[in-house]
């Protein structure tokens, strides 16, 4: 090979931190031989806000709004994970109605997150149109959040032990309307992209990560499922009443960028199915369990993981019996998934690197925390 005696062809380049297609402030040091990527290294931490440390200086209730800012695209999922972890420490369970509303909102959030991913990923690859359509539909989910809890992005929708707000009038109808409206829209995106030859050329066999590698890196979420592993925490370790709903885990075989795209598209359809079932079977009753005003969990520790849109999102909280967590560790899916970038991009072209970063679906707020 040429590089063994001609190292002068090797070039080290910085991609980012202000590169538009790194989805935030990610810096990738790329070693190149011409157009070919020989290796990459990620430099992260530009968005580090010390969320885990903040937790140690806040009470359990006060920390809840901060978790929304970890993965701001999927704030509702983060809130759910945190609330479930504290509830596990306190040994309480949210009432059935609260659980169902939580499921509806997190699934809407999953759709919103996948839509944002699809729009920006397509934009990176050169298809500008889907972005506008994705944003248009995402707006509906954001409107539901706004009407439900008063904020669109950093929602702070759930409280420890249940919900703060009762659903608003017309909530069920709006969710069902969104389901009806959204399914044809997914077909529309597929019409735009799935068969498109440029899209296929750019994605098929790009950034392959097989199942064994996925497991070795700890990669979860749609990336793992695209490699053929049927692992979804909603099915494997059901939380918040997911065992009651009937849905499938979409999987694919190859584990390339195209498969991940297909898996996410299928997941949106499955989310619609879950929302439908949850809204139709929405129980009545209280929305908060009995939790003390001052939350003071007993000494102990709890780990709860949920299936966030990007993969396994875990909260590990250690309590020393005071009102503040002794330690709160977040296991963010983006951070773990990003570690596979080097393996996926080795040997590909620079242009593919953009596609590969996009397909991991990272949010830098979550990578750096």
């Amino acid at each position: 090979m040429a590089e063994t005696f001609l190292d002068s062809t090797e070039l080290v380049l910085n991609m980012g931190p202000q590169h538009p297609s790194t989805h935030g402030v990610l810096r990738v040091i790329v070693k190149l031989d011409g157009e070919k990527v020989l290796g990459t290294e990620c430099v992260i931490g530009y968005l580090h806000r010390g969320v885990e440390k903040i937790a140690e200086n806040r009470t359990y209730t006060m920390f809840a709004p901060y978790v929304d800012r970890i993965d701001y695209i999927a704030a509702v999922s983060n809130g759910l994970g945190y609330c479930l972890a504290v509830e596990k420490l306190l040994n309480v369970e949210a009432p059935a109605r609260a659980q169902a509303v939580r499921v509806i909102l997190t699934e809407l959030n999953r759709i919103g997150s996948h839509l944002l991913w699809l729009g920006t990923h397509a934009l990176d690859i050169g298809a500008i149109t889907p972005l506008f359509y994705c944003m248009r539909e995402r707006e509906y989910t954001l409107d539901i959040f706004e009407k439900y809890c008063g904020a669109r992005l950093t929602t702070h929708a759930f409280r420890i032990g249940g919900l703060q707000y009762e659903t608003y009038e017309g909530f069920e109808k709006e969710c069902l309307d969104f389901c009806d409206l959204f399914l044809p829209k997914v077909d529309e995106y597929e019409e735009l992209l799935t068969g498109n030859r440029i899209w296929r050329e750019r994605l098929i066999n790009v950034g392959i990560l097989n199942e064994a590698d996925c497991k070795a890196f700890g990669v979860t979420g749609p990336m793992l499922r695209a490699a053929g592993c049927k692992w979804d925490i909603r099915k494997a370790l059901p939380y918040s009443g997911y065992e009651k709903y009937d849905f499938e885990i979409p999987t694919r075989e190859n584990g390339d960028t195209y498969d991940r795209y297909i898996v996410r598209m299928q997941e949106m359809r499955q989310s619609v199915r879950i929302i439908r079932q949850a809204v139709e079977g929405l129980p009545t009753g209280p929305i908060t369990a009995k939790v003390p005003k001052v939350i003071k969990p007993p000494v102990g520790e709890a780990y709860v993981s949920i299936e966030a849109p990007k993969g396994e999102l875990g909260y590990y909280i250690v309590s020393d019996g005071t009102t503040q967590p002794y330690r709160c560790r977040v296991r963010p899916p983006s951070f773990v998934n990003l570690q596979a970038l080097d393996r996926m991009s080795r040997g590909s072209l620079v242009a593919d690197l953009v596609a590969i970063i996009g397909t991991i679906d990272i949010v830098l707020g979550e990578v750096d925390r």
Partner: protein
Amino acid sequence: MRTILRKVFLVDLLQGMWVTFRTQHPKNIVTEQYPFERPKVAERYRGAPRLNINPENGQTLCICCDLCALACPEALIVVGWERNPETKRKDLVTFTYDTSRCMFCGLCEDACPVDALELTQDFELASYSREGAIFDRQILEEGIQPKKYVF
């Protein structure tokens, strides 16, 4: 044969173009003309804070219990009060609310026992200086009074 024909006539690309074409109709326009048309925000929207006053006598509803200040994760609310020697009650003197550090989480609003502090639908919070983002009692009670520009 069919695949070749599909390729030659760019069927896959035309399919995508057709989707774009379908949405050209004016009834599909979703863009909001923001400064000209104010969007309607939801009733529960958490925007600019307001300190409610009793509409009958203009007195503040706040009972100076300090619960909102204690509930706030950012500790940005400062309630200044004085003990009234005649009525033995606390009288509100100052109330500052630093919106530049606020994350509009709504915890203060939830903590208030008399619904005196409320996050309203007003979302235009920009100001020319950092000091402008700190709301005092007057702004909180009367709302933000933006400077009117005449063109």
